[in-house]
C-alpha cells in the first residue's frame, strides 16, 4: 500500500465514521481510533492524536450552528470547563505513561457504555424546586427558546456536576475522545438541565476540552500530520453531510446498526487489550 492509497482509505473510513457519528449523535471520533488501530494497524498513540484533532473540528463546526439559536448555557459551560480542562490534562498526561494495552481495555469499556447510553430513551430532567443555591450565586439559572416562547430552568447539584466533569475530561484526555455521552449525563441527570441545553452546552465544551488535551498530545509528538490530515478532513466532511441529512432521515435503524458496530469494536478492543496485542 503506498502512501496515497493509505491516505485515501483512511480518509474514506473517517468520512463514513463522521457521517454515522453525526446521524446517531455518538460522534465520529469514538469509532475512528478503533478503526485506525484494528483495521489499519496504527499504533494507538498516533490514532488517539489524529482522532482528537477531528473531535475539535466537528465540535467547533457544530457549535458554530448552535450558538445562534441561543440554547447553550455559556455560564454553566465555562464554569465546568475548569473541571474538564484540568481533567483532560491529567488524562492526557496519564495516557503517555500507561501501556497501550491498558488504554485499549479502558477504550473498550467506554465504547460499550456509550452504546448503552445511546440506546436508552432520553431521561427527562427533574425540576420544580429552586435548584442549587450555588447555581443562583453563579447566575447559572437561565432560559431557552422553545416554540411556545422562552422556558426558564434552574440548575441543580453544581458540585456533583463539577466532579463528574472532571472525570469526563480525564477520560477525554486519556482516550482522545469527546466523551459527549458522559458530559450530557452529568448536566442532564446530576444538574437537571433540559436535554436540549445539555446537548448543545456539551458540544461547546467538547471542543475546549479536546483543545486542552491536544496541547499535551502535540507537545508529546502524538499528532502526526499525514495521518491526522485525512482523519480530520474526513470526519469533518462526513459529519457536516450527516448534520444536513439528519432532519430528513429516519435514524432508528441506523442507530441500531451503528450501536452494533460500536459493540463489535468494543469487544475487539477489549480482546486486543487483554491479550496484549495492542
Amino acid at each position, binding site marked *: 500500500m*503506498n*502512501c*496515497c492509497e493509505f491516505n485515501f482509505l483512511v480518509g474514506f473510513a473517517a468520512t463514513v465514521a463522521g457521517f454515522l457519528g453525526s446521524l446517531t449523535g455518538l460522534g465520529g471520533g469514538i469509532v475512528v481510533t478503533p478503526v485506525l488501530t484494528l483495521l489499519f494497524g496504527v499504533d494507538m498513540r498516533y490514532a488517539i492524536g489524529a482522532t482528537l*484533532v477531528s473531535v475539535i473540528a466537528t465540535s467547533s463546526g457544530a*457549535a458554530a450552528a448552535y450558538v*445562534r439559536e441561543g440554547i447553550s448555557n455559556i455560564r454553566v459551560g465555562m464554569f465546568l470547563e475548569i473541571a474538564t480542562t484540568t481533567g483532560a490534562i491529567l488524562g492526557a498526561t496519564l495516557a503517555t505513561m500507561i501501556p497501550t494495552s491498558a488504554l485499549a481495555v479502558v477504550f473498550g469499556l467506554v465504547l460499550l457504555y456509550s452504546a448503552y447510553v445511546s440506546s436508552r430513551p432520553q431521561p427527562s430532567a427533574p425540576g420544580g424546586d429552586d435548584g442549587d443555591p450555588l447555581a443562583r450565586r453563579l447566575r447559572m439559572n437561565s432560559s431557552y427558546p422553545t416554540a411556545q416562547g422562552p422556558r426558564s430552568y434552574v440548575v441543580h447539584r453544581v458540585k456533583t456536576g463539577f466532579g463528574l466533569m472532571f472525570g469526563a475530561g480525564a477520560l477525554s484526555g486519556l482516550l482522545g475522545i469527546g466523551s459527549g455521552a458522559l458530559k450530557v449525563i452529568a448536566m442532564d441527570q446530576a444538574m437537571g438541565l433540559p436535554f436540549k441545553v445539555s446537548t448543545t452546552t456539551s458540544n461547546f465544551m467538547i471542543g475546549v476540552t479536546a483543545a486542552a488535551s491536544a*496541547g499535551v498530545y502535540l507537545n508529546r*509528538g502524538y499528532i502526526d500530520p499525514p495521518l*491526522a*490530515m485525512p482523519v480530520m478532513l474526513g470526519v469533518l466532511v462526513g459529519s457536516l453531510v450527516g448534520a444536513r441529512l439528519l432532519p430528513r432521515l429516519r435514524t432508528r435503524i441506523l442507530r441500531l446498526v451503528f450501536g452494533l458496530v460500536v459493540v463489535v469494536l468494543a469487544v475487539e478492543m477489549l480482546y486486543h487489550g487483554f491479550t496484549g496485542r495492542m
Partner: protein
Amino acid sequence: MAGGEQRWTDEQIEVLVGTLLRSGVVLSAGVVLLGGAIYLLHYAGAAPDYRVFKGEPSDLRSVPGIVTGLFSLHGRSVIQFGLLLLIATPIARVAFSAVAFFLQRDHTYVWVTLIVLTILLWSLIGSGSAL
C-alpha cells in the same frame, strides 16, 4: 458600541462567536488540505509505518517549531500549522468570551474564563517542558 455606553447583548456576542468558530474551522481545513496536497505530491512513495510509535520530530511538536517550519513549505509542516489553527479555534473562543463577560461587567465569569484560558495556554505552550 456608540459612545461606549451601549452594552453588548448576548445575541450579538453569539453571532460573533458563531462566525469566529466557522472561520477557524474553514481556515484550518483549507490549510490542512493545502498541506496534504503538497505532502502527497512529494511523498507518493511507500506508506509511512504507524505500527511502531516513534513520536514526531521536535519541529512538529512545539508552537514555535511549527510556525518556523511553515516557511519551509514542507507538506508536513503546513498540515501541522493547519492543525495548530484548529486547536487555537476553541482557545480563541474562550478568549473572546473573557472579553464579552468583561464588556457585560460580569466579573465572576471574567475570572472563571481567565482560569480556563490559562489552563488551555499552559497545555499548548508549557506542557512540553514541564511534564
